[in-house]
């Protein structure tokens, strides 16, 4: 090759090269945006896991399990979710105190709600780990101790149901107004 000079670029060459580089730049930009969106989605799913997990086991969940939840949710991608489902979930994640009453209300009034599905999936992920399994293994407190505990659960469930039903109604009404407004 040495000693041979390259041919001078023509206008066509320059235009083609520009077009190509523009296409490559667009591709790279799209890839970056997709990665950014994925990262954002992953982060928001992890936040969701932290809020729901705290409700389920009464404390923070290991980061590894939150990441596993995010991975599972991105894989499963529930396509049947409605606007109300989304609102319920957003409301719960933003106000973690409301997850317990909303879940209690959904268990009776909207058993197919996305919030319930997500809680059950996270419960599965927590249970299938040595750290989380402790919260799922059977307990034996004796017949009387168990009876007292069940009574406590019944009282707390009724209170949560009453609050949750009111919250659920309010979110439903708000969602209806928002949809009509659109």
């Amino acid at each position, binding site marked *: 090759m040495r000693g041979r000079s390259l041919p001078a670029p023509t206008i066509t060459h320059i235009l083609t090269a520009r077009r190509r580089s523009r296409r490559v730049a667009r591709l790279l930009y799209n890839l970056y945006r997709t990665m950014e969106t994925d990262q954002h989605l992953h982060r928001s799913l992890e936040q969701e896991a932290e809020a729901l997990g705290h409700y389920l086991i009464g404390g923070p969940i290991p980061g590894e399990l939150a990441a596993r939840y995010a991975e599972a949710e991105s894989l499963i991608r529930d396509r049947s979710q409605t606007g109300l489902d989304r609102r319920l979930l957003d409301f719960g994640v933003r106000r973690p105190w409301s997850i317990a009453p909303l879940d209690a209300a959904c268990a009776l009034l909207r058993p197919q709600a996305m919030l319930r599905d997500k809680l059950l*999936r996270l*419960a599965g992920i927590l249970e*299938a*780990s040595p750290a989380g399994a*402790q919260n*799922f293994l059977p307990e034996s407190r004796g017949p009387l101790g168990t009876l007292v505990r*069940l009574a406590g659960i019944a009282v707390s469930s009724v209170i949560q149901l009453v609050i949750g039903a009111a919250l659920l109604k309010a979110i439903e009404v708000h969602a209806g107004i928002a949809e009509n407004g659109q």
Partner: protein
Amino acid sequence: MRHDVIVVGSGPAGVNAATPLVEAGWNVALVDFGNRETTYAPLIPNQPFSQLRRTDAMQHRYFLGDRFEGLASGKVRVGAQLTPPRQYVHADVSQWMPVVSESFSAMESLAQGGLGNAWGAGAFSFSDAELAGAGLGAAKMRRHYERVAARIGISGTRDDLLPFFGDCESLMPATTLDSNAGRIHSRYLVKRDRFHAAGFYLGRPRLALCTEERSGRGPYGYEDMEFWADFNRSVYRPRWTLEELCRRPNFAYLDRRFAVSFKENSDGQVCLSAQDADKGRDETIDARALILAAGTLSTTRIVLRSLGQYDTRVPLVCNPYTYVPVLNLASFGRPASDERCSLAQLTSIYTPPDGEPVQTQFYSYRSLLTFKLLKEAPLGARNALRALRGVMNALGILAINHADSPSPEKSCFLRRGGGGQRDQLHIEYRQNPSQCEMQRKHEQAILREFRRLGCWPLTRVRPGHGSSIHYAGTIPISNSEGQLTCDEHCRLRGTRGVYLADGAVFRQLPAKGLTLSIMANADRVGELVGACLATEAWRAAA
């Protein structure tokens, strides 16, 4: 190798039909799709379920699956009991064997070992009357029950259920009862006469499980992992027999093949057309006889397609099935023993004054993950979890099987698939109101007796028609010369050398699992085919 017999299917029927033929020295080819599971089995350490949950950091891979398939939510459906390591059992089925039905959920398998890989191992022989109802001669079948029992290994007890299951010479001791079931059994023994007067009998189930070491299998180690793995090969799977067969020089395992149809040639040979499962290439395999043991619905497809009987209705029977979660008050709040087994702990037989006996199995619910139960509770997930942890040791599941017999509302037919589509099996299955009423009455009576034993039903779940996975009666044994029936030797009428060895030949089903009876009949068919070939060979030589 020239084949004397082709067997289609490697499930409980296929391998048990092939065994007597191979033992008699005939050259046998077993044609099978042969899906296998290689991902999860190596990941599961041979440790008890309770220990794995506390210690194994990799448990999410086999408990939930790499694609989180164990987290699937939604309605209870047929096959929902399959854990990720068992889901290969019904892989590829919807693509290769489409079923169309609004009223029936069918489960089929293209796995090596068929549905036997997910079998609950209940091994119950039919009584003489039940065999007669199914179209099988009692006297002929007893010897085959014994042979199959010796082959697969059955454990159990000679107790109050002996008159219903008959004796078994090679019976191994039953597994140790877990504490939950043990408390129920103790109560029953105290008031046994009262229960008998009500037509209710309780005892240990017969299980295809080696509690003692036998032919390199067992003894059972109480790992409580039967839904997930096959430790020690204690529980019988048809794959164990297939492996033994593969060691014989006169046996050929032709896997990755999908059996399509057969035809009989003028020279007396049967020609099986099969499709390569990976490349889609067609091939034919010739032999002197063909045994179809691909599972009731698959065998029905092959027969209807081969005889050109598209859109012809054939009967279908399937045990109606109900399960009832119960709370055993005697175990309420008490600890449970850790040495335990996931399979059925107890079996009851209820003999109603106005119908056939109804069989119920009792399982202690502890061998699956708890989160699956959370959605069933009408409470918030956290409270449901707290409540479940408290009552888990006292939870049990009653699985009630009802008898079934043919009727015009239960049938299936094959529709030719157009435009490169596969043929579709259409199933219509409805129960008449009197049958439903009878079942409801029997269930009430059974639950009343379990209440007397301290078990309180929480709800009654009917997962829908087909959920028992006990399909039968499509090409039944019949004394009349009707088309699409078999003679008493299970030879398909109108053919010289085509035999059926699975549930398709059973005219009706008693309220029992039919797997052991399928295996015993397959053993009989294998022996009969061998005898026919020997007679033919003797005639030819003479």
